[in-house]
């Protein structure tokens, strides 16, 4: 694949990494579902989302820190979403819509750094900004229910949660990639 000035070929190894990130994201998310449902019963979609928001965004920072090539953040998040759509998970195609949007925003972070930094800083930011499209889409999905002030608080919560998990993802990759 060519991308602007970069000639970045994704080898089968890079693609396998993407696949594996998609699967890991899926498994991590499935592991926290119990938390999601309990959170949802108690605090509704808001409660559940604040607890688990950041986990939904880890596809991008994981893939980017691992592969370190343009489009890796976007693909990591999108493929993870595609896998979740297929399994299927609760949410069906919404996963894909969210995933593509989140992936785009995360990718922007790496683009802004001119694809020179694939470290903890960019991972944290990538996780954080993914909160913006996620909350916006949530607003569309649940618009009638939540007033603007609440949505704003959710946005802050989502971005913090995303940043934290983005940061942790980069730490995990550093701990295991020889």
């Amino acid at each position: 694949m060519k991308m602007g000035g970069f000639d970045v070929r994704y080898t089968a190894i890079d693609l396998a990494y993407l696949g594996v990130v998609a699967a890991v994201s899926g498994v991590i998310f499935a592991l926290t579902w119990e938390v999601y449902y309990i959170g949802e019963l108690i605090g509704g979609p808001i409660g559940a989302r604040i607890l688990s928001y950041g986990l939904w965004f880890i596809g991008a920072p994981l893939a980017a820190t691992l592969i370190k090539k343009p489009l890796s953040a976007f693909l990591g998040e999108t493929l993870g979403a595609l896998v979740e759509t297929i399994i299927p998970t609760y949410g069906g195609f919404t996963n894909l819509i969210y995933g593509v949007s989140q992936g785009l925003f995360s990718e922007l972070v790496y683009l802004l750094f001119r694809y020179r930094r694939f470290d903890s800083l960019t991972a944290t930011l990538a996780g954080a900004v993914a909160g913006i499209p996620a909350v916006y889409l949530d607003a569309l999905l649940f618009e009638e229910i939540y007033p603007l002030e609440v949505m704003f608080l959710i946005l802050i919560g989502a971005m913090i949660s995303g940043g934290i998990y983005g940061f942790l993802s980069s730490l995990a990759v550093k701990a295991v990639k020889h």
Partner: protein
Amino acid sequence: MDNTRNSIYIDIGEAGYTGGEPVIKNIKFSVKRGESILITGPSGSGKTTLILALTGVLNNLLEGYVDGNISIFGINPLDPQEFTSIPETIGVVLQDPEKQLSMSTPYDEVAFTLENLGYSSNDIDRLTREILNWMGLGNKMFIDSLYLSGGEKKRLCIASSIVHKPRLLILDEPTANLDPWGVKELLEYIELLKSRGYTLIIVEHKAKYFLNLSDRILLIKDGELKKIYQVKNVKPHDLENDLANEGVDASCKIQSKGVVKSGGEVLYTVDGVSFRYSDKDEEVISNVTLEIYKGDVVLFMGPNGSGKTTLLKLLAGFYKPTRGKITLHLDGRSISLTRPTREVFYISQEPDYMFIYGSVKDELWKSGAEQDVIRLLEEVPWLRNLMDESPYNLSHGQRRWLAYYIARLYNPDIYLFDEPSAGLDLNLLRRFLTWIMSIREKGKTIIIATHDPRLLQLDINSIFLVKDGRVEKKDVKDVIGMMNQLFRGG
């Protein structure tokens, strides 16, 4: 060089993953069409790196380097352009099917190779079906590869690597992960391939299985080619001894010290135990009744998939039996384990599962008493240099040992080992066996699930044969007899 198209020439001065850090050096040999070459040597001698180098993967894909000349039937794999022709010419079967299979079903897996190489739809279908039938997977073409046994997955890997009728077939540690029965079956298939005229390069540290099969044997040690043996010119006995002296598993004879009587009290009472993972699954363990005594070394031997790992996990309290009861008699109490506990320490075949911290330092200091850790660090100096490393960044051997040391720091009463000898060459195996006996001397109970006959060298107190979920107490002599029968004349 008019023989170029019919031969393989390998002349590597140096090769490695990072510039200036060679992993293999001075390897020069040639292979004639139709020959079978065995490349053997102790673990870590660079055999896998050699495969990556001679296929062109090391320099073209992994950003490594190869200083030298390679010609595979006239194609130079080191050249980026010619590298693209390599897939047509060679087939490679890697060590672990889980690290090679990428598609959902056997059909898709085999078709993948042909699709990549641009075959037509009709040819793809025909050739795929042909090869799957030939490898005995004809009736499993469209089931999910998940459900294949280890041996079937191996055969699937072979099928997908030969469907395009490559001129050279490379097998990397083909007997890895296979139990003795699986190895026997594999050898039959390899003989068949040889008779069909395939040129074979087999890389394997367990040379013993391939001594008869090979035309020539290359010994690689510390990254260099040390010796080449022309098999027909060497007496089998001499060959075996010579290789054994170099640290290579060359002898098929299974030795054992026989069974030592149990002296201790009853530790485990297993009564009519059966287990299935869920209602939809079949029983993995059926109606098992046995006793295990304190301070014993107990072996559960059996083929892969026989249920021995599940049995270990039941003993560890990871699962509860679906029928029957397992009672643990420890410290004067008799209990049924309902959850895992540190007193019964299960050590997985894969060390990565065992770690929970981000540094070796934490893994050690947070697992045991201070004085035990201090003593350990004195005993094992190489650990001291790795304290700040992440456990996952250690070499495979180091991770293995780290897992064992962590287990020891927890000071459990019972150690449960799942296939602890997988991938260990002669020297490493000896070290492991010595270590086991040192733990046993402290009065610990050691229970091992394995298919590896080499573990029969331990001072065993009880041995059980596990097959299709059923467990039978056996005499060591019977088990040895059975194993030797499998490889008659080895």
